[in-house]
């Protein structure tokens, strides 16, 4: 016979399971490709649309997405590389049509939720490219973008010279939150990047996450600080949404 404590535990687990909605796979048909989207549904009014470009991997991102959905933030993770059968290399980004990304943004906005974009590393170029095209087409606006350790230099910066950025930088008015690791030389480029992004009217906020390197949540050799921040990434993203003016989280 079950004791009171066991019964209570079962009740709590059932209540928890009722609130947590499982990941679902959604296929979005665009003109160029069928894109598989991992959807972490939530009841709230905020939808976070990420471009992991990872051919179905990204374990830390999935855990974060699950955690966010439990907190009421819906997360969509489209597999852009898989959709176009592209290899996981930086040059593949150029082969992803902007129209395909904007088609996914349109689909996300159909939910009636406020849509925020998120990407990391070189994938941040896709967000900026899509945002500027979306604005040019005069649609219902996207609420903002979170760029985690953006890698937006056109080439390796020459010492002593202002770096040149990819063409998508400085073309959108989207409010932007920049996150960068404290243990990467790129943190010293945050001001310059912010200035470039602001030239087109974006309201840009930047924060340095102390004691972590870039790509901290993708690293095999993660140190203790990086493990801790990875485990708290959902909170970090919620704080970023707050900085972008989101009050419904």
């Amino acid at each position: 016979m079950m004791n009171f404590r066991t019964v209570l535990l079962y009740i709590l687990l059932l209540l928890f399971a009722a609130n947590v909605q499982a990941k679902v796979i959604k296929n979005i048909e665009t003109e160029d490709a069928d894109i598989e989207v991992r959807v972490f549904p939530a009841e709230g009014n905020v939808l976070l649309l990420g471009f992991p470009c990872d051919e179905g991997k990204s374990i830390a991102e999935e855990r974060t997405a699950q955690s966010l959905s439990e907190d009421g933030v819906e997360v969509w993770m489209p597999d852009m590389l898989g959709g176009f059968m592209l290899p996981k290399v930086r040059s593949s980004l150029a082969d992803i049509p902007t129209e395909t990304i904007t088609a996914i943004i349109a689909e996300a906005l159909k939910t009636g939720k406020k849509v925020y974009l998120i990407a990391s590393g070189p994938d941040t170029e896709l967000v900026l490219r899509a945002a500027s095209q979306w604005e040019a087409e005069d649609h219902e606006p996207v609420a903002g973008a979170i760029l985690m350790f953006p890698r937006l230099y056109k080439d390796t910066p020459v010492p002593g010279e202002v770096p040149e950025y990819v063409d998508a930088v400085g073309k959108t008015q989207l409010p932007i939150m920049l996150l960068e690791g404290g243990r990467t030389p790129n943190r010293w480029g945050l001001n310059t990047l912010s200035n470039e992004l602001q030239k087109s009217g974006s309201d840009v906020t930047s924060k340095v996450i102390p004691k972590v390197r870039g790509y901290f949540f993708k690293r095999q050799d993660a140190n203790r600080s990086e493990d801790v921040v990875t485990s708290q990434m959902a909170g970090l993203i919620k704080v970023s949404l707050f900085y972008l003016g989101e009050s419904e989280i």
Partner: protein
Amino acid sequence: MYKQIYLSILLLTLSVLSQGMVHAANLKPVTNEVAAPSLTLKDLQGDIHDLKDYRGQVVLVQFWATYCGPCRKEMPSMNKMMSKMGDTPFKILAVDMGESEAEVRPFVEEVKPEFTILMDEEGKSIEDWRVFAAPSNFIIGPDGNIKYTLFGGVEWDSDELVDKLKALAK
């Protein structure tokens, strides 16, 4: 036939190896008269170093960090370079990019650099010198102007590099 295959593999290997190294040819000459920005920082002993006090010498100003793999790898070759430069008036000022003394000391005790490590926890000089990647190197001539820049890890004790820096001192 086997000899040809062996030679092809050997040539391919040499080609791949040479691509992984940065040569003196990667030194980017600065042709205009560009004065080095000011640089006044403390070393790990607390002594202040001012770049302008080294006027008349060739100075390698390097921006590095302990988390930067290529920076860690090339430091022993900087030690060897110091001895290869012999009597040439030459100084290395290696500026750590924004780390604390507690982070830098263990690395310094391991590598034992025979040159000056400068600390810039606030990153002021990093902005002044427009450094956006590590390691970033500036070769300053005896006149205080920037003669070359170089990004990336390099074998600093290569004869080609040492000769180029010695030539600057003449």
